[in-house]
């Protein structure tokens, strides 16, 4: 065990009196966490700088991105809510002034505790069985790094509905989260950027969304010579920094990817693929019966393969197999379908999964795809060939003394490609592209980052446990008759409707979180009536801006009886709140967070450890540390013991009783913030050093972070899969097919037929469907003509604005203005000219039901049939942002079951019209 490294935060320059440089951490977005120092002069935070002491361990040189530089202004923003507020106008509505009145913390806590205690007295769940208390946090889990010990309060409380979404789980990488974890423990999929030589990126805007580490790694890769092909309807920041831009028609990426696979299967010699990988490490040789399920050994029910050595069918895990990759074989087997139904038994013809795949892909030639994608067949063919050439099948590399396959090719998908209808097909095709050349979870290839649905969450490799049929275990929500849950535990019904969402702490936010909102007005048949929660907490999220159908969402918010907003400034969602609680914000509050290993987006470290986010200045006004707020709420609701127990168990990030030390807090009394985090720090210290060290808060305050090495081979799942004798569950999705069939039966048994379109997605080999047509149907369903709505409206990431609640920061606005698209709607000049629109002209974008106004920004880097709205704006309450005059796709997009896929996600895509607006015309 090597000594951990803990940098001293001294400065080369002697600090003048009154000047400190305080190390802290930034985790405003999922591309973090990253490390910084804040210069404090006479108690005033003045400058953000990198933490160069962390450069040796942080994969981004100890630096932070532009958003972190907004933290000083975020602290001193004069629009901050600095005292608790209560609403004095009982009527809630967009046009109703809440009449905020400052109150004392005591009164605020009293108001909230009264409501909570009422709930405890009445019952933690309501007449529909839903939790009476709901809580929503945005930011893909990052708010957890800012809310102190609040998770401990929620844990002590009991059932909480965390499924009222603000976009997460639905508008994010949703399908990738679920399928990625299912296939290779990849909640988010990344390329192995430092080693990758050829990257196909379908709409993954990594240079805008990848944060410090993503940008750092890709910058190095570019200079090293990695070629990235960006397949995307507009020339994003990432497209700009790529070797090639392929302007694909929106929502046709599945056809593109299928065409690549077709080339690899039908135009290249089989030997160009990684045949040993396919045979040994995937389910390619598994035999499939006439009903589409595996042919299984009659005695053991294990799936069968054809062993060429013995010319017989043997179970997949028989020793010394020489599996046949292709062919159809007559075998003695049983074919088991849903609910254990025996569909066939005896001498049955079985084709290998791989043979079925080859046949399945035959129709999807580049010529076929060209008409759909509006990409020349030759381009697709060339990309497929380049991909295989760069794959280096057969090559190896030494990592941490082990010999691993080297396959320096990867495929990444972005938002709107890996969610909504078509998300399954794209994720499956992408994973297949990796599988065919053995580039899945190996150096250079397509790899996962972390897990959120399988457990344990902090140990990706430990979550690789043997499951059925030689695959990894996955905590699917049961669909068998005995265990399927017809009664959902929370309003978005994830456990009932989405087997892949699992049932872990994160599952609530990964179900169809728009259902919670939608079903308030009309709950579909079979689900208990969706009720507003008695108490709703929310923090670091603004669903009235960031979700769909924002106007209607606001109206629903107005019906919530009691809303507690942890508020930074007034905003569009807390406009409907009853109490505003101002938490001490990023630079004012205390929390220890984990850093390192491999996490989201591109955070691949060679170290692991912890960093302290510490107050660099006194909290402004009456703001309070979230930990103190949580402790007080627990006390006022009689939950102190349970709260402390939750902290002891690890709700603050580290179990206080570990293998080497016990820093558990006594249960019976309140502990202040310092005591709690000192205990957490000591526990972290012990965990990190295997008990050798026991450093408390003061030590961590000075050092900022501490780490120990994390082996590079842990970046790749392949060695663990091999070690445990498992196979990747590809290409054939027999388990999902069965699960879908069972789910269908369960739903129909309960007379629930409104999920039938989604059930159709559970296909073992998904065919291409006309995905764009689904969005076109939204237009024609109401009787409008598609020709009147000829444009695809998309969104893209604004790196400067996204996350952190920094939309109200003047400096962010100022610097973001340097990047095109922050002032209006991006339109192709040809398309604009046809409509008589000049750069800067006022324009209107409309669906048959809604319209928004903005200004035209003419750019060549976009398809003529596509419009782009960067970010999510159209604020009407948030100071500064409300004067931007930027429209949002979210106003135009609807929440609908029709546009929801089987995993419960949708996509940011709308068919719209575009016209020049007269200057004086009113919007809406």
């Amino acid at each position, binding site marked *: 065990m090597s000594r951990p490294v803990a940098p001293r935060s001294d*400065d*080369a*320059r002697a600090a003048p009196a009154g000047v400190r440089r305080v190390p802290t951490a930034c985790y405003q977005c999922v591309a973090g966490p990253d490390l910084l120092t804040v210069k404090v*002069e*006479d108690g*005033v*935070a*003045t*400058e*953000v*700088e*990198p933490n*160069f002491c962390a450069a040796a361990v942080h994969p981004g*040189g100890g*630096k*932070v*991105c*532009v958003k972190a*530089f*907004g933290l*000083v*202004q975020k*602290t*001193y*923003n*004069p*629009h901050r809510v600095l005292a608790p507020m209560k609403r004095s106008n009982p009527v809630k509505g967009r046009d109703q002034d809440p009449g905020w009145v400052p109150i004392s913390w005591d009164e605020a806590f009293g108001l909230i505790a009264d409501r909570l205690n009422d709930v405890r007295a009445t019952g933690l769940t309501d007449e529909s069985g839903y939790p009476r208390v709901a809580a929503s946090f945005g930011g893909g889990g990052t708010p957890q790094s800012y809310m102190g010990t609040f998770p401990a309060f929620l844990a002590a409380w009991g059932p909480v509905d965390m499924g009222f979404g603000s976009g997460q789980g639905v508008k994010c990488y949703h399908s990738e989260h679920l399928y990625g974890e299912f296939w290779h423990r990849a909640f988010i999929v990344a390329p192995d950027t430092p080693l990758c030589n050829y990257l196909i990126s379908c709409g993954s805007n990594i*240079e*805008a969304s990848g944060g*410090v580490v993503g*940008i*750092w790694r890709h*910058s*190095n890769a*570019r*200079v090293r010579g990695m070629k990235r092909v960006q397949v995307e309807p507009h*020339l994003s*920041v990432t*497209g*700009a*920094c790529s070797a090639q*831009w392929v*302007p694909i028609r929106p929502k046709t990426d599945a056809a593109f990817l299928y065409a690549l696979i077709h080339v690899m299967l039908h135009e290249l010699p089989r030997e160009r693929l990684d045949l040993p990988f396919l045979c040994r490490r995937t389910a390619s040789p598994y035999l499939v019966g006439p009903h589409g399920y595996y042919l299984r050994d009659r005695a053991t029910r294990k799936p069968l393969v054809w062993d060429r050595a013995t010319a017989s069918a043997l179970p997949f895990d028989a020793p010394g197999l020489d599996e046949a990759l292709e062919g159809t074989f007559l075998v003695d087997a049983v074919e088991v379908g849903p609910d254990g139904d025996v569909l066939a038994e005896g001498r049955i013809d079985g084709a290998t999964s791989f043979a079925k795949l080859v046949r399945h892909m035959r129709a999807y030639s580049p010529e076929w795809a060209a008409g759909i994608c509006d990409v020349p067949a030759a381009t697709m063919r060339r990309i497929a060939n380049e991909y295989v050439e760069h794959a280096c099948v057969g090559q190896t590399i030494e990592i941490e003394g082990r010999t691993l396959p080297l396959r320096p090719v990867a495929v990444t998908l972005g938002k709107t490609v890996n969610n909504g209808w078509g998300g399954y097909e794209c994720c499956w095709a992408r994973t297949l592209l990796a599988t065919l050349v053995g580039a899945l979870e190996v150096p250079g290839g397509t790899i996962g980052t972390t897990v959120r649905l399988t457990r344990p969450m902090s140990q990706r490799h430990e979550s690789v446990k043997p499951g059925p049929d030689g695959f990894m275990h996955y905590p699917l929500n049961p669909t068998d008759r005995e265990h399927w849950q017809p009664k959902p535990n929370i309003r978005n019904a994830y456990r009932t409707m989405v087997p892949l969402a699992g049932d872990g702490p994160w599952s609530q936010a990964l179900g169809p979180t728009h259902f919670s909102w939608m079903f308030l007005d009309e709950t579909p048949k079979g689900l208990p009536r969706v009720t507003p929660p008695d108490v709703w907490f929310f923090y670091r999220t603004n669903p009235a801006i960031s979700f769909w159908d924002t106007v209607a969402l606001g109206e629903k918010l107005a019906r919530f009886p009691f809303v507690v907003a942890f508020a930074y400034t007034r905003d569009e969602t807390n406009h409907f709140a009853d109490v505003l609680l101002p938490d001490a914000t990023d630079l004012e509050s205390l929390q220890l967070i984990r850093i390192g290993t491999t996490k989201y987006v591109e955070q691949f470290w060679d170290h692991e450890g912890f960093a302290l986010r510490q107050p660099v200045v006194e909290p402004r006004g009456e703001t309070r540390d979230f930990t103190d707020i949580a402790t007080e709420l627990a006390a006022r609701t009689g939950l102190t013991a349970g709260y402390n127990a939750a902290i002891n168990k690890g709700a603050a990030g580290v179990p206080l009783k570990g293998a080497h030390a016990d820093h558990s807090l006594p249960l019976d009394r309140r502990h202040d913030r310092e005591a709690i985090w000192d205990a957490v720090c000591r526990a972290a210290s012990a965990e990190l050093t295997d008990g050798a060290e026991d450093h408390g808060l003061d030590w961590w305050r000075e050092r900022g972070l501490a780490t120990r090495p994390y082996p590079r081979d842990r970046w790749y799942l392949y060695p663990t899969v091999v070690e445990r004798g498992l196979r990747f569950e590809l290409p054939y999705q027999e388990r999902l097919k069965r699960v879908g069939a069972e789910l269908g039966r369960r739903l129909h048994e309960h007379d629930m037929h409104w999920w039938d379109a989604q059930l159709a997605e559970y296909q073992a080999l998904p065919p291409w469907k006309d995905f764009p047509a689904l969005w076109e149907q939204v237009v024609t369903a109401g009787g409008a003509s598609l020709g009147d709505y000829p444009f695809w409206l998309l969104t893209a990431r604004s*790196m*400067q604005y996204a996350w952190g609640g920094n939309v109200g920061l*003047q*400096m962010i606005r*100022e*610097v*973001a203005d*340097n*990047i*095109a698209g922050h002032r209006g709607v991006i339109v192709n*000049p*040809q398309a604009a000219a046809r409509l008589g629109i000049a750069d800067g002209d006022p324009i209107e974008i409309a669906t048959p039901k809604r319209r928004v106004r903005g200004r035209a920004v003419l*750019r*060549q*880097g*976009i*398809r003529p049939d596509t419009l782009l709205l960067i970010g999510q704006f159209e604020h009407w309450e948030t100071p500064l942002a409300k004067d931007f005059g930027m429209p949002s796709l979210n106003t135009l997009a609807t929440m609908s079951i029709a546009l929801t896929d089987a995993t419960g996600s949708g996509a940011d895509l709308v068919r719209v019209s575009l016209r020049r607006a007269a200057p004086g015309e009113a919007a809406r």
Partner: protein
Amino acid sequence: MTRWTMVADLRRCVGCQTCTAACKHANATPPGVQWRRVLDMEFGEYPNVQRAFVPVGCQHCEDPPCMEVCPSTATRKRADGIVTIDYDVCIGCAYCAVACPYQARYKTDRASFAYGAATENEAKRHDDARLAVATKCTFCVDRIDAGLAQGLTPGVDPAATPACVNACIAQALAFGDADDPQSNVSQLLAQNRSFRMHEELGTGPNFHYLWDGGEP
């Protein structure tokens, strides 16, 4: 001799504006003033379009047009190449600003703050001496001088390096002495293809843009 030089690698830059923000922090520039900023430039016609992100700012030219026209000699060039402005001498005529072909100079007539009235951090940093006079990137000359005094190497040791270079998360910016053949910038220029902006105007900028690998 020493010739402080900035090198921006256009292959690396992603336009994130982290350097823009870092410069604002280090130099407490008022709203609208960006001594360092990154442009978003587009070329070509659909579908053959390219887009580049270009860090710009004072080029600390060998033959600075600003210095030539400055009536008060507030603008001077040091022996080590840095073009400086003496705020206490400057009359604020903005002749230098119109003379600069890189649009690198700013003049803020009145004190202005992010949200109207000065916030605590703005009040702490505000300097009346910088009102109504020309201002621009100084290559963080105070950091360089303080660093050199402590034996540090500008461009290598962060404490002696311009804030933008320190902050860049794509490692797109490099800073060093071009007159030292072993320096980081000299090596970058020797090993990559580069150009300078508006070369034809004869300003002799000490700001180079890398555009490709391979020897020049």
